[in-house]
């Protein structure tokens, strides 16, 4: 391992090392408030190192710039791809983790002194997510996935009451099942291709079959379905969504926030890399599979969300619906690469719309969750009816939550309007007009339950008169995500360019 390799994995080392440091400092510090500062410093260091790598990747610091900063020969060579795609998700995950930590300062009082555990597990999980977006080999993907999932299961149970324990156990068991499905798919793929590297699998699928492989294409078809099922649990797509509402309701609110954005983003990262790089040029009709999952997720998520009375369950079903919208972009990936004759912007429209949607969704959903964390750490209730008259108790909080819900509907000056537009147009361009239509209808349907919450907040008389006070750090977190939501909605060009550039690093597109 050379020092250049160390530089390439330095963001992961920084975040994981900070996690370890937090565990140790927790043992000696009396004032637990300092731990959050240490964790934030670690995330900032990771962000800084990622920025330096991005500069190198773009060639801004001299040199020509490379889309993929290749790791030298050795143990890591085949397992990690530190490319612009991975860097994009590094920033997304680190930013989400930072916002969640900022927003949970008040909430941590309910953790009964488990500050160190909360922060360390969050950092370990973030490391796993970053590695997941860079993993270019099946075994690395599996390890990164476990590193993501196991701390999240412990985090979900951290409140140690009945609901929280249930959430943790459900997440653990569902995670184990999805890992098992995915491992079986990986085994079948390895049996077919004889390699665990995603690029190698792509080459093996493209090569004309020199030797007959038993059950040939059917084995790959089963592997694709099993992998999609395994990733489906992580991104919470129907029919693998059953854990979402219970975990979102029972887990500590900051953990639910982190689960809903970072975990989903990392799941889509690995999904895109495996399916686009591995199966991209290969016509296995997995695009139709993704389209089916997308339609089912949108419809089920939105229909069930309507009858919810708990804000966190509502947001849980809303994330299922949004997994569906994002899967439209994934389905468009398949459509574009199947028709290879059309080069240019069309080939990257699907995956780059997924990346832009994820960035927009992370900002908007975090806005909603930061507001929910702030409210629930003060009034200790998640019932929507307890949000009545929120505008009189905390006007800015109510306004921010209303903005987030408007963004989740997809109303123009916000990020998700552009994102939905982009995803739907990618679908239409790759011949999936029906799917775009389902998406549009679902967006309209979803307005019902989002606006219901806004109506309760603004029009109903408040249940109590006392004002809701929030720490300055939570205000800072809220301001950051609101600014990001509006920025991506008003001036989307910059983020669209970044998403486009990140997707070009995936080898399936470059071909």
């Amino acid at each position, binding site marked *: 391992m050379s020092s250049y390799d160390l530089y390439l994995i330095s963001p992961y080392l920084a975040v994981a090392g900070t996690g*370890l440091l937090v565990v140790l400092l927790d043992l000696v510090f009396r004032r637990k408030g300092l731990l959050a500062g240490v964790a934030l410093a670690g995330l900032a260091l990771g962000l800084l190192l990622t920025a330096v790598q991005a500069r190198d990747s773009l060639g801004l610091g001299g040199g020509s710039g490379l889309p993929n900063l290749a790791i030298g020969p050795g143990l890591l060579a085949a397992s990690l791809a530190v490319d612009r795609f991975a860097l994009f998700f590094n920033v997304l995950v680190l930013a989400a983790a930072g916002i969640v930590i900022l927003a949970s300062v008040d909430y941590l009082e309910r953790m009964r002194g488990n500050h160190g555990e909360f922060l360390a597990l969050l950092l370990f999980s973030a490391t796993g997510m970053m590695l997941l977006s860079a993993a270019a080999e099946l075994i690395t993907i599996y390890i990164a996935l476990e590193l993501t999932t196991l701390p999240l299961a412990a985090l979900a149970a951290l409140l140690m009451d009945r609901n929280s324990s249930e959430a943790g156990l459900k997440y653990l068991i569902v995670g184990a099942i999805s890992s098992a499905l995915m491992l079986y798919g990986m085994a079948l793929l390895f049996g077919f291709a004889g390699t665990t590297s995603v690029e190698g699998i792509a080459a093996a699928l493209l090569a004309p079959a020199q030797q007959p*492989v038993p059950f040939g294409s059917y084995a790959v078809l089963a592997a694709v379905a099993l992998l999609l099922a395994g990733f489906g649990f992580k991104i919470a797509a129907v029919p693998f969504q059953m854990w979402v509402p219970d975990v979102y309701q029972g887990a500590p609110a900051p953990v639910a926030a982190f689960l809903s954005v970072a975990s989903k983003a990392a799941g889509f990262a690995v999904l895109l890399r495996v399916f686009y790089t591995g199966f991209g040029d290969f016509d296995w009709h997995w695009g139709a599979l993704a389209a089916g999952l997308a339609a089912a997720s949108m419809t089920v998520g939105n229909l069930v969300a309507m009858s919810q009375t708990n804000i966190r369950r509502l947001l849980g079903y809303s994330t299922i619906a949004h997994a569906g919208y994002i899967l439209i972009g994934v389905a468009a990936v398949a459509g574009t690469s199947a028709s290879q004759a059309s080069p240019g912007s069309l080939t990257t429209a699907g995956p780059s719309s997924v990346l832009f949607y994820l960035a927009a969704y992370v900002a908007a959903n975090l806005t909603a969750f930061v507001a929910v964390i702030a409210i629930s750490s003060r009034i200790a209730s998640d019932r929507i009816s307890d949000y009545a008259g929120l505008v009189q108790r905390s006007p800015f909080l109510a306004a921010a939550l209303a903005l987030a819900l408007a963004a989740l509907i997809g109303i123009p000056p916000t990020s998700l309007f552009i994102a939905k537009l982009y995803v739907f147009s990618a679908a239409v361009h790759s011949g999936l007009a029906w799917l775009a239509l389902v998406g549009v209808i679902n967006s309209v349907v979803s307005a019902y339950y989002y606006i219901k919450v806004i109506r309760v907040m603004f029009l109903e008389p408040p249940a109590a008169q006392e004002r809701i006070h929030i720490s300055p750090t939570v205000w800072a977190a809220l301001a950051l995500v609101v600014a990001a939501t509006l920025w991506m909605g008003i001036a989307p060009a910059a983020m669209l360019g970044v998403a486009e550039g990140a997707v070009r690093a995936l080898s399936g597109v470059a071909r």
Partner: protein
Amino acid sequence: MLENYFRQYGLAAIFLLVAFLVPVGMLAGSWVFSRLGVRPAKPSPVKDAPYECGMEPIGGPWNRFNFRYYAYALLFVIFGVEVVFLYPWAVRFIQMELFALIEMAIFILVLAAAWAYAWRKGDLEWR
């Protein structure tokens, strides 16, 4: 290629067959020998005990354990895993130079952090 593939399954099938036949053969042999009078049937309480050596078991097998053993089991896993990794590392150490030494030092430090955490949080005390 294809023949080779199915030959692998054939080998697995042979292993399965052997694994099935060995215990069945033992039981059947025992029965045949008892029929021939080679093995006299003389049951005694000692022979009926679950283990012929070691402690006399106390209580039934479905007894509940004290939950506090759980923490000890976890701590045991920490050191168990450490040894599992240390042993092959020690065998191949000569070929791997300084890099392996640093790598293992980091590994042991991480484990030591976990152990320090358990110690400080009072998991080593019997409460």
